[in-house]
Protein backbone atom coordinates (compact mmCIF):
# COMPACT_ATOMS: atom_id res chain seq x y z
CA UNK A 1 0.00 0.00 0.00
CA UNK A 2 1.37 3.33 -0.94
CA UNK A 3 0.69 6.95 -1.65
CA UNK A 4 1.17 7.41 -5.37
CA UNK A 5 1.51 10.70 -7.18
CA UNK A 6 0.39 11.57 -10.67
CA UNK A 7 0.05 14.53 -13.02
CA UNK A 8 -2.77 15.23 -15.43
CA UNK A 9 -3.82 17.97 -17.76
CA UNK A 10 -6.88 19.07 -19.69
CA UNK A 11 -7.86 21.99 -21.87
CA UNK A 12 -11.11 23.77 -22.68
CA UNK A 13 -12.36 26.00 -25.48
CA UNK A 14 -15.37 27.89 -24.22
CA UNK A 15 -17.74 29.59 -26.67
CA UNK A 16 -19.77 32.63 -25.64
CA UNK A 17 -23.04 33.77 -27.21
CA UNK A 18 -25.35 31.74 -29.44
CA UNK A 19 -25.88 32.99 -32.98
CA UNK A 20 -28.54 30.51 -34.00
CA UNK A 21 -31.34 33.05 -33.97
CA UNK A 22 -31.94 35.08 -30.86
CA UNK A 23 -29.76 35.60 -27.80
CA UNK A 24 -30.39 39.28 -27.10
CA UNK A 25 -29.76 41.36 -24.01
CA UNK A 26 -30.94 44.94 -23.59
CA UNK A 27 -29.86 47.84 -21.40
CA UNK A 28 -31.08 51.36 -20.74
CA UNK A 29 -29.02 54.23 -19.34
CA UNK A 30 -30.35 57.50 -17.99
CA UNK A 31 -28.99 60.44 -16.03
CA UNK A 32 -30.73 61.41 -12.82
CA UNK A 33 -31.12 64.99 -11.66
CA UNK A 34 -28.40 64.39 -9.07
CA UNK A 35 -25.93 63.59 -11.83
CA UNK A 36 -25.63 59.84 -11.44
CA UNK A 37 -26.11 57.56 -14.42
CA UNK A 38 -28.41 54.61 -13.91
CA UNK A 39 -27.96 51.44 -15.97
CA UNK A 40 -31.17 49.42 -16.03
CA UNK A 41 -31.26 45.81 -17.15
CA UNK A 42 -32.45 42.36 -16.12
CA UNK A 43 -29.26 40.32 -15.88
CA UNK A 44 -28.66 38.92 -12.41
CA UNK A 45 -25.89 39.72 -9.95
CA UNK A 46 -25.20 36.48 -8.09
CA UNK A 47 -21.80 37.22 -6.64
CA UNK A 48 -19.86 36.93 -9.89
CA UNK A 49 -19.48 40.71 -9.99
CA UNK A 50 -21.84 41.59 -12.83
CA UNK A 51 -22.83 44.95 -11.35
CA UNK A 52 -19.19 45.96 -10.91
CA UNK A 53 -18.21 44.91 -14.41
CA UNK A 54 -21.18 46.64 -16.06
CA UNK A 55 -20.65 49.81 -13.99
CA UNK A 56 -17.02 49.84 -15.18
CA UNK A 57 -18.12 49.43 -18.80
CA UNK A 58 -20.78 52.15 -18.49
CA UNK A 59 -18.38 54.57 -16.77
CA UNK A 60 -15.73 53.99 -19.44
CA UNK A 61 -18.17 54.62 -22.29
CA UNK A 62 -19.92 57.60 -20.70
CA UNK A 63 -16.59 59.10 -19.63
CA UNK A 64 -17.70 59.55 -16.01
CA UNK A 65 -16.23 58.17 -12.77
CA UNK A 66 -17.23 54.68 -11.62
CA UNK A 67 -18.89 56.18 -8.53
CA UNK A 68 -21.30 58.11 -10.76
CA UNK A 69 -22.82 54.88 -12.14
CA UNK A 70 -25.62 52.95 -10.47
CA UNK A 71 -26.55 49.52 -11.86
CA UNK A 72 -30.20 48.70 -11.26
CA UNK A 73 -30.78 45.13 -12.30
CA UNK A 74 -32.36 41.79 -11.59
CA UNK A 75 -36.09 42.52 -11.86
CA UNK A 76 -37.40 40.87 -15.01
CA UNK A 77 -40.90 42.29 -14.35
CA UNK A 78 -39.75 45.82 -15.04
CA UNK A 79 -36.29 45.67 -16.64
CA UNK A 80 -35.46 45.48 -20.34
CA UNK A 81 -35.04 41.96 -21.69
CA UNK A 82 -32.07 39.70 -20.92
CA UNK A 83 -31.91 36.20 -22.42
CA UNK A 84 -30.42 34.87 -19.23
CA UNK A 85 -27.53 35.17 -16.83
CA UNK A 86 -25.72 31.98 -17.72
CA UNK A 87 -23.41 30.30 -20.21
CA UNK A 88 -20.77 32.96 -19.48
CA UNK A 89 -22.65 35.35 -21.73
CA UNK A 90 -23.45 38.33 -19.53
CA UNK A 91 -20.22 40.34 -19.61
CA UNK A 92 -20.21 39.92 -23.38
CA UNK A 93 -23.96 40.37 -24.12
CA UNK A 94 -24.97 42.86 -21.44
CA UNK A 95 -21.61 44.60 -21.75
CA UNK A 96 -22.23 45.29 -25.44
CA UNK A 97 -25.80 46.42 -24.72
CA UNK A 98 -24.53 48.78 -22.01
CA UNK A 99 -21.94 50.24 -24.39
CA UNK A 100 -24.65 50.94 -26.99
CA UNK A 101 -26.95 52.58 -24.42
CA UNK A 102 -24.13 54.56 -22.82
CA UNK A 103 -22.94 55.85 -26.21
CA UNK A 104 -26.39 57.23 -26.97
CA UNK A 105 -26.64 58.82 -23.50
CA UNK A 106 -23.14 60.25 -23.83
CA UNK A 107 -24.02 61.92 -27.12
CA UNK A 108 -27.10 63.45 -25.53
CA UNK A 109 -24.98 64.69 -22.61
CA UNK A 110 -22.40 66.23 -24.94
CA UNK A 111 -25.17 67.91 -26.99
CA UNK A 112 -26.50 69.61 -23.84
CA UNK A 113 -22.98 70.60 -22.74
CA UNK A 114 -22.36 72.02 -26.22
CA UNK A 115 -25.36 74.30 -25.87
CA UNK A 116 -24.22 75.38 -22.41
CA UNK A 117 -20.65 76.13 -23.53
CA UNK A 118 -21.72 77.47 -26.95
CA UNK A 119 -19.38 75.15 -28.83
CA UNK A 120 -19.84 72.17 -31.12
CA UNK A 121 -20.45 68.82 -29.41
CA UNK A 122 -17.73 67.35 -31.65
CA UNK A 123 -15.18 69.52 -29.85
CA UNK A 124 -16.06 68.19 -26.40
CA UNK A 125 -14.27 65.48 -24.43
CA UNK A 126 -14.81 63.86 -21.03
CA UNK A 127 -11.98 63.57 -18.50
CA UNK A 128 -13.33 60.47 -16.75
CA UNK A 129 -13.32 62.41 -13.47
CA UNK A 130 -16.76 63.87 -13.91
CA UNK A 131 -16.02 66.85 -16.17
CA UNK A 132 -16.71 67.71 -19.77
CA UNK A 133 -14.40 70.21 -21.44
CA UNK A 134 -13.45 71.63 -24.78
CA UNK A 135 -10.67 69.63 -26.44
CA UNK A 136 -7.39 71.28 -25.48
CA UNK A 137 -9.08 73.98 -23.34
CA UNK A 138 -9.41 72.48 -19.87
CA UNK A 139 -10.70 75.77 -18.42
CA UNK A 140 -13.80 75.63 -20.64
CA UNK A 141 -15.26 72.87 -18.52
CA UNK A 142 -18.52 71.76 -16.90
CA UNK A 143 -19.22 69.06 -14.34
CA UNK A 144 -21.20 66.20 -15.94
CA UNK A 145 -23.61 66.33 -12.98
CA UNK A 146 -24.44 69.97 -13.78
CA UNK A 147 -25.02 69.07 -17.42
CA UNK A 148 -27.30 66.21 -16.38
CA UNK A 149 -29.40 68.56 -14.25
CA UNK A 150 -29.47 71.30 -16.88
CA UNK A 151 -30.56 68.77 -19.49
CA UNK A 152 -33.70 68.11 -17.52
CA UNK A 153 -34.47 71.48 -15.98
CA UNK A 154 -33.28 73.94 -18.63
CA UNK A 155 -33.00 72.28 -22.03
CA UNK A 156 -35.83 69.75 -21.81
CA UNK A 157 -33.55 66.92 -22.91
CA UNK A 158 -33.60 63.41 -21.52
CA UNK A 159 -29.97 62.38 -21.20
CA UNK A 160 -30.52 58.69 -21.83
CA UNK A 161 -29.76 55.87 -24.19
CA UNK A 162 -31.08 52.51 -25.36
CA UNK A 163 -28.93 49.50 -26.12
CA UNK A 164 -29.47 46.00 -27.38
CA UNK A 165 -27.00 43.37 -28.49
CA UNK A 166 -28.33 40.82 -30.96
CA UNK A 167 -25.96 39.52 -33.61
CA UNK A 168 -27.69 38.33 -36.80
CA UNK A 169 -28.71 34.67 -36.79
CA UNK A 170 -26.14 32.42 -38.39
CA UNK A 171 -27.68 29.97 -40.85
CA UNK A 172 -25.95 26.69 -41.45
CA UNK A 173 -24.62 26.23 -44.99
CA UNK A 174 -26.60 23.21 -46.27
CA UNK A 175 -23.64 22.03 -48.38
CA UNK A 176 -20.77 22.30 -45.90
CA UNK A 177 -22.56 22.51 -42.54
CA UNK A 178 -20.55 25.62 -41.83
CA UNK A 179 -21.95 28.31 -39.55
CA UNK A 180 -20.79 30.92 -37.05
CA UNK A 181 -22.59 29.64 -33.96
CA UNK A 182 -21.00 31.83 -31.28
CA UNK A 183 -19.46 35.27 -30.73
CA UNK A 184 -16.09 34.46 -29.23
CA UNK A 185 -14.11 31.65 -27.66
CA UNK A 186 -12.07 31.66 -24.46
CA UNK A 187 -9.44 29.00 -23.76
CA UNK A 188 -7.78 27.42 -20.78
CA UNK A 189 -5.46 24.62 -19.83
CA UNK A 190 -5.13 23.12 -16.35
CA UNK A 191 -2.35 20.93 -14.94
CA UNK A 192 -3.03 19.05 -11.72
CA UNK A 193 -0.90 17.00 -9.34
CA UNK A 194 -2.63 14.46 -7.11
CA UNK A 195 -1.68 11.96 -4.45
CA UNK A 196 -3.71 8.76 -4.20
CA UNK A 197 -3.73 6.56 -1.12
CA UNK A 198 -3.95 3.04 -2.51
CA UNK A 199 -5.10 1.66 0.84
CA UNK A 200 -8.07 3.98 1.42
CA UNK A 201 -8.70 5.14 -2.15
CA UNK A 202 -8.64 8.76 -0.99
CA UNK A 203 -7.38 11.34 -3.48
CA UNK A 204 -5.73 14.62 -2.54
CA UNK A 205 -5.22 17.37 -5.07
CA UNK A 206 -1.76 18.80 -4.36
CA UNK A 207 -1.68 21.64 -6.85
CA UNK A 208 -3.85 23.04 -9.61
CA UNK A 209 -2.22 25.34 -12.14
CA UNK A 210 -3.94 26.94 -15.10
CA UNK A 211 -3.43 29.30 -17.96
CA UNK A 212 -6.50 31.24 -19.10
CA UNK A 213 -6.91 33.13 -22.36
CA UNK A 214 -10.05 35.15 -21.79
CA UNK A 215 -9.76 38.30 -23.85
CA UNK A 216 -9.35 41.55 -22.01
CA UNK A 217 -10.03 41.34 -18.27
CA UNK A 218 -12.57 43.97 -17.30
CA UNK A 219 -11.78 43.32 -13.63
CA UNK A 220 -8.75 41.12 -12.84
CA UNK A 221 -9.70 40.64 -9.17
CA UNK A 222 -13.12 39.28 -10.16
CA UNK A 223 -11.49 37.05 -12.80
CA UNK A 224 -9.24 35.59 -10.11
CA UNK A 225 -12.28 35.03 -7.90
CA UNK A 226 -13.98 33.07 -10.67
CA UNK A 227 -10.88 30.97 -11.34
CA UNK A 228 -10.21 30.01 -7.70
CA UNK A 229 -13.90 29.32 -7.06
CA UNK A 230 -14.07 27.26 -10.25
CA UNK A 231 -11.01 25.24 -9.26
CA UNK A 232 -12.80 24.33 -6.05
CA UNK A 233 -15.99 23.41 -7.94
CA UNK A 234 -13.93 21.25 -10.30
CA UNK A 235 -12.44 19.38 -7.35
CA UNK A 236 -15.94 18.86 -5.98
CA UNK A 237 -17.21 17.39 -9.24
CA UNK A 238 -14.10 15.30 -9.85
CA UNK A 239 -13.86 13.72 -6.40
CA UNK A 240 -17.01 14.11 -4.32
CA UNK A 241 -20.24 15.46 -5.69
CA UNK A 242 -23.03 13.29 -7.02
CA UNK A 243 -26.76 13.04 -6.49
CA UNK A 244 -26.70 9.39 -7.54
CA UNK A 245 -27.05 6.82 -4.76
CA UNK A 246 -23.73 5.55 -3.48
CA UNK A 247 -25.23 2.05 -3.61
CA UNK A 248 -28.01 0.87 -5.86
CA UNK A 249 -30.90 1.85 -3.61
CA UNK A 250 -32.46 5.25 -3.99
CA UNK A 251 -32.69 5.85 -0.23
CA UNK A 252 -28.91 5.88 -0.11
CA UNK A 253 -28.83 8.95 -2.34
CA UNK A 254 -27.38 12.04 -0.72
CA UNK A 255 -30.10 14.56 0.06
CA UNK A 256 -28.47 17.23 2.23
CA UNK A 257 -25.21 18.93 3.13
CA UNK A 258 -24.38 16.23 5.64
CA UNK A 259 -24.10 13.50 3.02
CA UNK A 260 -23.82 15.34 -0.30
CA UNK A 261 -20.12 15.82 0.21
CA UNK A 262 -18.39 18.94 -1.09
CA UNK A 263 -14.78 19.88 -0.53
CA UNK A 264 -14.01 22.17 2.37
CA UNK A 265 -11.27 24.69 3.06
CA UNK A 266 -8.85 21.90 4.00
CA UNK A 267 -9.26 20.15 0.64
CA UNK A 268 -8.06 23.16 -1.35
CA UNK A 269 -4.63 22.82 -2.93
CA UNK A 270 -2.35 25.57 -4.05
CA UNK A 271 -4.09 27.26 -7.00
CA UNK A 272 -2.08 29.25 -9.52
CA UNK A 273 -3.23 30.96 -12.67
CA UNK A 274 -1.68 32.92 -15.49
CA UNK A 275 -3.85 35.12 -17.67
CA UNK A 276 -3.35 35.80 -21.35
CA UNK A 277 -5.34 38.67 -22.81
CA UNK A 278 -6.04 38.38 -26.53
CA UNK A 279 -8.87 40.88 -26.99
CA UNK A 280 -12.04 39.54 -28.57
CA UNK A 281 -13.22 41.45 -31.64
CA UNK A 282 -16.86 41.17 -30.64
CA UNK A 283 -16.57 41.65 -26.87
CA UNK A 284 -17.02 44.85 -24.88
CA UNK A 285 -13.55 46.42 -24.72
CA UNK A 286 -12.20 43.04 -25.90
CA UNK A 287 -13.71 40.90 -23.12
CA UNK A 288 -14.77 37.26 -23.52
CA UNK A 289 -16.60 35.18 -20.91
CA UNK A 290 -14.86 33.67 -17.88
CA UNK A 291 -17.64 31.96 -15.96
CA UNK A 292 -18.51 28.34 -16.49
CA UNK A 293 -15.18 27.41 -18.08
CA UNK A 294 -13.32 27.73 -14.77
CA UNK A 295 -14.91 24.50 -13.51
CA UNK A 296 -14.39 22.63 -16.80
CA UNK A 297 -10.70 21.83 -17.28
CA UNK A 298 -9.98 20.95 -13.61
CA UNK A 299 -12.32 17.92 -13.70
CA UNK A 300 -10.69 15.88 -16.51
CA UNK A 301 -7.25 17.10 -15.40
CA UNK A 302 -7.83 15.56 -11.95
CA UNK A 303 -9.14 12.27 -13.40
CA UNK A 304 -6.16 12.14 -15.77
CA UNK A 305 -3.79 12.73 -12.84
CA UNK A 306 -5.38 9.87 -10.90
CA UNK A 307 -5.09 7.57 -13.93
CA UNK A 308 -1.48 8.65 -14.29
CA UNK A 309 -0.75 7.92 -10.63
CA UNK A 310 -2.33 4.47 -10.65
CA UNK A 311 -1.80 3.41 -14.25
CA UNK A 312 -5.54 2.76 -14.60
CA UNK A 313 -8.24 4.18 -16.88
CA UNK A 314 -11.06 5.59 -14.79
CA UNK A 315 -13.62 7.30 -17.03
CA UNK A 316 -16.32 8.41 -14.59
CA UNK A 317 -16.85 11.13 -12.01
CA UNK A 318 -16.80 11.57 -9.11
CA UNK A 319 -13.73 9.46 -8.47
CA UNK A 320 -14.72 8.42 -4.95
CA UNK A 321 -12.50 6.13 -2.85
CA UNK A 322 -14.72 3.25 -3.95
CA UNK A 323 -14.11 4.00 -7.63
CA UNK A 324 -10.35 4.13 -6.96
CA UNK A 325 -10.31 0.85 -5.04
CA UNK A 326 -12.40 -0.93 -7.68
CA UNK A 327 -10.06 0.31 -10.42
CA UNK A 328 -7.06 -0.95 -8.44
CA UNK A 329 -8.74 -4.32 -7.90
CA UNK A 330 -9.49 -4.65 -11.58
CA UNK A 331 -5.92 -3.72 -12.47
CA UNK A 332 -4.56 -6.31 -10.00
CA UNK A 333 -6.79 -8.95 -11.59
CA UNK A 334 -5.70 -7.99 -15.08
CA UNK A 335 -2.01 -7.88 -14.07
CA UNK A 336 -2.33 -11.28 -12.36
CA UNK A 337 -4.02 -12.86 -15.36
Amino acid at each position, binding site marked *: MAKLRGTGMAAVNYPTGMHLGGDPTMALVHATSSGSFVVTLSSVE*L*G*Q*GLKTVLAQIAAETLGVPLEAVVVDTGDTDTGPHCSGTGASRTTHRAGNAVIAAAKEARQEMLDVAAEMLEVSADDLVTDGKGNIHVKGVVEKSLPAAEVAAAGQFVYGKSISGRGIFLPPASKQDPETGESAPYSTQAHACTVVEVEVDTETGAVRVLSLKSVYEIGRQVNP*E*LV*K*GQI*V*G*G*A*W*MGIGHALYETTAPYYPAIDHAPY*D*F*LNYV*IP*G*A*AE*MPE*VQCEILEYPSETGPYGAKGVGEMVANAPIPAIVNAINNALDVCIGEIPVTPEVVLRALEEKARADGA
Partner: protein
Amino acid sequence: MTAKILSLNVNGRDETILCDGLTTLQEVLRDQLGLLTSVKDGCTQGGCGSCSVLVDGELWLSCLAPVAALAGRAVMTLEGLKQSAGIAAIQQSFIDNSAAQCGFCTPGMILTVKALLDANPEPSHDEILEALSGNLCRCTGYLPIVEAVKDAAARLSGGADAARASEGREG
Protein backbone atom coordinates in the same frame (compact mmCIF):
# COMPACT_ATOMS: atom_id res chain seq x y z
CA MET B 1 -46.98 21.50 22.94
CA THR B 2 -47.64 24.49 25.13
CA ALA B 3 -46.38 27.88 24.21
CA LYS B 4 -43.98 29.52 26.58
CA ILE B 5 -42.89 33.10 27.14
CA LEU B 6 -39.27 33.69 27.94
CA SER B 7 -36.81 36.52 27.94
CA LEU B 8 -33.65 36.57 25.93
CA ASN B 9 -31.02 39.22 25.44
CA VAL B 10 -30.44 39.77 21.72
CA ASN B 11 -27.85 42.23 20.51
CA GLY B 12 -27.88 43.97 23.90
CA ARG B 13 -31.66 44.30 24.16
CA ASP B 14 -33.95 42.28 26.40
CA GLU B 15 -36.59 40.64 24.23
CA THR B 16 -39.67 38.71 25.17
CA ILE B 17 -40.12 35.64 23.01
CA LEU B 18 -43.09 33.41 22.39
CA CYS B 19 -41.96 29.87 21.70
CA ASP B 20 -42.65 26.22 22.16
CA GLY B 21 -40.19 23.46 22.96
CA LEU B 22 -39.11 23.04 19.36
CA THR B 23 -38.82 26.67 18.28
CA THR B 24 -35.24 27.27 17.19
CA LEU B 25 -33.18 30.33 17.89
CA GLN B 26 -32.86 30.74 14.12
CA GLU B 27 -36.66 31.06 13.69
CA VAL B 28 -36.86 33.60 16.50
CA LEU B 29 -34.02 35.73 15.14
CA ARG B 30 -35.16 35.67 11.52
CA ASP B 31 -38.93 35.75 11.90
CA GLN B 32 -39.91 37.12 15.32
CA LEU B 33 -37.30 39.76 16.01
CA GLY B 34 -37.54 42.24 13.18
CA LEU B 35 -35.68 40.37 10.48
CA LEU B 36 -32.17 39.73 11.76
CA THR B 37 -31.33 38.30 8.36
CA SER B 38 -27.58 38.12 8.78
CA VAL B 39 -28.66 34.81 10.32
CA LYS B 40 -29.06 32.75 7.15
CA ASP B 41 -30.95 29.53 6.63
CA GLY B 42 -28.84 27.31 4.40
CA CYS B 43 -29.96 23.90 5.63
CA THR B 44 -31.79 24.02 9.00
CA GLN B 45 -29.88 20.98 10.15
CA GLY B 46 -26.41 21.96 11.27
CA GLY B 47 -24.67 21.29 7.98
CA CYS B 48 -23.61 24.67 6.61
CA GLY B 49 -22.73 27.21 9.32
CA SER B 50 -24.67 30.01 7.65
CA CYS B 51 -26.90 30.50 10.72
CA SER B 52 -24.00 31.01 13.16
CA VAL B 53 -24.49 33.35 16.14
CA LEU B 54 -22.64 33.95 19.38
CA VAL B 55 -24.31 32.84 22.63
CA ASP B 56 -22.47 34.34 25.60
CA GLY B 57 -19.51 34.74 23.25
CA GLU B 58 -19.54 31.12 22.09
CA LEU B 59 -20.21 30.07 18.49
CA TRP B 60 -23.60 28.36 18.06
CA LEU B 61 -25.58 27.06 15.11
CA SER B 62 -28.88 28.82 15.70
CA CYS B 63 -30.82 26.29 13.61
CA LEU B 64 -29.99 23.56 16.13
CA ALA B 65 -30.57 25.62 19.27
CA PRO B 66 -34.00 25.23 20.95
CA VAL B 67 -34.66 28.74 22.15
CA ALA B 68 -36.46 27.43 25.26
CA ALA B 69 -33.07 26.32 26.61
CA LEU B 70 -31.57 29.80 26.23
CA ALA B 71 -33.63 31.81 28.73
CA GLY B 72 -31.60 34.67 30.19
CA ARG B 73 -28.62 34.19 27.90
CA ALA B 74 -27.06 36.82 25.63
CA VAL B 75 -27.23 36.25 21.88
CA MET B 76 -25.23 38.29 19.40
CA THR B 77 -25.85 38.31 15.66
CA LEU B 78 -23.70 40.12 13.13
CA GLU B 79 -26.17 43.04 13.23
CA GLY B 80 -25.38 43.56 16.91
CA LEU B 81 -21.63 43.20 16.49
CA LYS B 82 -21.07 45.27 13.41
CA GLN B 83 -19.97 48.35 15.32
CA SER B 84 -17.28 46.54 17.28
CA ALA B 85 -13.63 47.03 16.38
CA GLY B 86 -12.95 43.31 15.95
CA ILE B 87 -15.77 42.86 13.48
CA ALA B 88 -14.74 45.96 11.51
CA ALA B 89 -11.22 44.54 11.09
CA ILE B 90 -12.54 41.14 10.01
CA GLN B 91 -14.96 42.74 7.55
CA GLN B 92 -12.21 44.89 6.09
CA SER B 93 -10.00 41.82 5.69
CA PHE B 94 -12.81 40.03 3.86
CA ILE B 95 -13.21 43.03 1.56
CA ASP B 96 -9.48 43.45 0.90
CA ASN B 97 -9.03 39.75 0.14
CA SER B 98 -12.18 39.44 -2.03
CA ALA B 99 -13.42 36.78 0.37
CA ALA B 100 -17.11 37.22 -0.46
CA GLN B 101 -18.90 36.68 -3.75
CA CYS B 102 -22.64 36.05 -3.32
CA GLY B 103 -22.28 36.81 0.40
CA PHE B 104 -24.63 34.11 1.66
CA CYS B 105 -21.96 32.40 3.76
CA THR B 106 -20.30 35.65 4.81
CA PRO B 107 -22.12 36.54 8.07
CA GLY B 108 -21.58 33.00 9.39
CA MET B 109 -17.96 33.07 8.27
CA ILE B 110 -17.33 36.40 9.98
CA LEU B 111 -18.83 35.24 13.28
CA THR B 112 -16.84 32.00 13.05
CA VAL B 113 -13.66 34.01 12.53
CA LYS B 114 -14.60 36.33 15.41
CA ALA B 115 -15.07 33.35 17.75
CA LEU B 116 -11.77 31.85 16.54
CA LEU B 117 -9.73 35.02 16.98
CA ASP B 118 -11.30 35.79 20.39
CA ALA B 119 -10.15 32.39 21.61
CA ASN B 120 -6.91 32.17 19.63
CA PRO B 121 -5.55 35.51 18.35
CA GLU B 122 -2.73 33.91 16.34
CA PRO B 123 -4.14 30.75 14.81
CA SER B 124 -1.98 28.46 12.67
CA HIS B 125 -2.98 27.58 9.10
CA ASP B 126 -4.39 24.25 10.28
CA GLU B 127 -6.28 25.86 13.14
CA ILE B 128 -7.91 28.22 10.63
CA LEU B 129 -8.95 25.30 8.41
CA GLU B 130 -10.33 23.49 11.46
CA ALA B 131 -12.31 26.56 12.53
CA LEU B 132 -13.80 27.00 9.04
CA SER B 133 -14.64 23.33 8.61
CA GLY B 134 -18.29 23.77 9.60
CA ASN B 135 -18.92 26.68 7.22
CA LEU B 136 -19.74 25.96 3.59
CA CYS B 137 -19.02 28.41 0.80
CA ARG B 138 -20.21 27.65 -2.72
CA CYS B 139 -18.47 30.55 -4.47
CA THR B 140 -14.99 31.54 -3.35
CA GLY B 141 -13.07 28.25 -3.18
CA TYR B 142 -12.13 29.16 0.43
CA LEU B 143 -8.58 30.33 -0.35
CA PRO B 144 -9.50 34.04 -0.16
CA ILE B 145 -11.35 33.39 3.12
CA VAL B 146 -8.31 31.68 4.64
CA GLU B 147 -6.21 34.67 3.54
CA ALA B 148 -8.76 37.05 5.08
CA VAL B 149 -8.55 35.23 8.41
CA LYS B 150 -4.75 35.52 8.45
CA ASP B 151 -5.02 39.17 7.51
CA ALA B 152 -7.59 39.85 10.25
CA ALA B 153 -5.44 38.07 12.83
CA ALA B 154 -2.47 40.24 11.84
CA ARG B 155 -4.55 43.42 12.01
CA LEU B 156 -6.03 42.58 15.39
CA SER B 157 -2.95 41.29 17.19
CA GLY B 158 0.00 42.68 15.29
CA GLY B 159 -0.39 46.28 16.46
CA ALA B 160 1.14 49.11 14.46
CA ASP B 161 3.36 46.97 12.23
CA ALA B 162 0.48 44.91 10.96
CA ALA B 163 -1.67 47.98 10.48
CA ARG B 164 1.10 49.60 8.42
CA ALA B 165 1.55 46.42 6.42
CA SER B 166 -2.14 46.19 5.63
CA GLU B 167 -2.29 49.88 4.70
CA GLY B 168 0.64 49.26 2.35
CA ARG B 169 -1.25 46.44 0.70
CA GLU B 170 -4.35 48.55 0.23
CA GLY B 171 -2.35 51.36 -1.33
